[in-house]
């Protein structure tokens, strides 16, 4: 496959690369933090999009994989003193494994029933971690400050984390494109459009759905480890924020579900909006309300999101925006 010839492939990568290089060139920490937060959103949205956008399954539990991956990775770093480059993939794999098991159980459900089950999973995961002593229960865990010495001190570690996140986001967007333009992606989209018809045509829906779920879970698992490595401590309330799951859905819908570029624009755009709202006195306490209203408006008037709207409004762009 000649993905490199397709603007739909390299355009998102170029955008992330440019955003990632900017603070590295200027060396400004404030810029780095803004872009770090934006990239977290972009990565969460892009990974959710594999399930929500390509496969058509709405999950309110995406943050479970972020939280669980983070906890597993953090435990390896704080209790077992293992390095980040082992902890991060382990976090991703454990999130993927959880998705595999969950997929076998709840991907039989469809539509609203699946969505409801994922809310239950989110609450169950938080309750479990709250009561699981090795993970520090409700208090959580923290990293010894000396842990960062291996990464050239805490200040350097922040830059390391940033670079790792940029690379991870690039990989994720490439995976997202490759999934979408593959035979596997075609089966996911067939499931999204009509699962029964897809099965009659020979698509093995149960296994395709499970693999989509696993791929979409691995990335938030890794991101969780990076995020809390940078943070230095982890608590159940921080790791399993249900509202972040909902905000991620808003990001995907805003940018355009089922597209590669959409979650990138949606994640960055939503984070930008949130940043503005948080410092506006009128909105600072009700920024989640704005997210809710935004979701409603998108679903009612632009169900395709920004990218979907652009593609249908300007057919020329279909070759460029995937």
């Amino acid at each position, binding site marked *: 496959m000649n993905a490199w010839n397709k603007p739909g492939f390299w355009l998102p990568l170029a955008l992330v690369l440019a955003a990632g290089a900017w603070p590295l060139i200027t060396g400004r920490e404030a810029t780095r933090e803004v872009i770090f937060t934006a990239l977290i959103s972009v990565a969460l949205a892009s990974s959710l999009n594999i399930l929500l956008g390509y496969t058509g399954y709405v999950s309110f539990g995406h943050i479970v994989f972020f939280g669980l991956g983070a906890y597993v990775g953090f435990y390896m770093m704080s209790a077992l003193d293992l390095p980040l480059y082992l902890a991060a993939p382990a976090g991703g794999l454990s999130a993927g494994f959880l998705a595999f098991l969950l997929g076998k159980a709840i991907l039989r459900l469809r539509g609203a029933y699946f969505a409801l089950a994922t809310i239950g999973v989110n609450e169950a995961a938080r309750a479990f971690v709250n009561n699981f002593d090795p993970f520090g229960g409700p208090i959580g865990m923290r990293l010894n400050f000396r842990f960062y010495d291996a990464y050239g001190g805490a200040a350097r570690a922040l830059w390391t984390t940033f670079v790792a996140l940029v690379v991870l986001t690039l990989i994720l967007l490439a995976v997202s494109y490759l999934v979408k333009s*593959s*035979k596997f992606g*075609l*089966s996911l*989209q*067939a499931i*999204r*459009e*009509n699962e*029964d*018809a*897809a*099965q*009659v*045509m*020979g*698509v*093995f*829906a149960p296994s395709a759905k499970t693999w989509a779920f696993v791929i979409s879970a691995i990335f938030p698992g890794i991101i969780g480890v990076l995020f809390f490595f940078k943070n230095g401590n982890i608590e159940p309330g921080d790791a399993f924020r249900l509202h972040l799951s909902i905000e991620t859905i808003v990001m995907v819908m805003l940018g355009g579900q*089922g597209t590669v570029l959409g979650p990138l624009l949606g994640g960055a755009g939503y984070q930008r909006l949130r940043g503005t709202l948080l410092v506006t006195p009128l909105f600072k306490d009700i920024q989640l309300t704005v997210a809710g209203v935004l979701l409603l408006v998108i679903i009612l008037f632009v169900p395709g999101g920004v990218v979907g709207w652009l593609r249908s409004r300007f057919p020329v762009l279909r070759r460029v925006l995937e």
Partner: protein
Amino acid sequence: MILQVQGVSKRFGGLQALSRITIDLPEGQILGLIGPNGAGKTTLFNVINGIYAPDEGSISFLGQSVSGWPPQRLAKAGMARTHQIVQPLNELSVRENVMVGACFGREDHGLADAARIADEVLDFVGLKAGADQLAGSLNVAEKKRLELARAVASRPHLLLLDEVLAGLNPAEITAMIQIVRQIRDRGVTIIMIEHVMHAVMNVSERIIVLDYGVQLAEGSPAEVSKDPKVIEAYLGDPKLAKKLAQRPV
């Protein structure tokens, strides 16, 4: 025999949808399946196709027992179908719809091959011009052709056609019958459910009549159309009908 249905029954709660249906279908035939509304024709398709498991009886396809197989496994084995109520993948293009059939059907093609097959098949059913359109934007007649194209693209051995002629105008019916015949000439065995009598009588080698889930009659189109039981099922009691017709107004 490509398909053998042995004493298959299916009930839904108190409704006996199918009772002891037996069909032996030799390769290369077109079998017409007719009967009044609610006779169980589509249910029979759903049982053959693996959407419902039969309560009794067995089904074998290409010599192996396939009772209890899910539809996706039967698709891989070479069974394809169209739906009475069209089920296009709306947000995918017409070509992509057909590619799904080619990719996941019997022959398991990669995307590039599937695209080529899709274009061939779309040309064959006369949808080539709209290949890049979204499937949701087609009209009903075109969606019926799309259903057919998806099924054909999977290169099936057995094709189940569920009312592909319904809702089409006479010219479209003639064109569609032509297409069905050509599919058969390529060696595909076909079972078609149809209400358009002259069409199904014309194209089928053999007809099976269902009524209230019971196999009412079976035979050549000529035999079946003269069978008094069949006439009764469609028109009511023939003697009564005659009497009513003779009654002075």
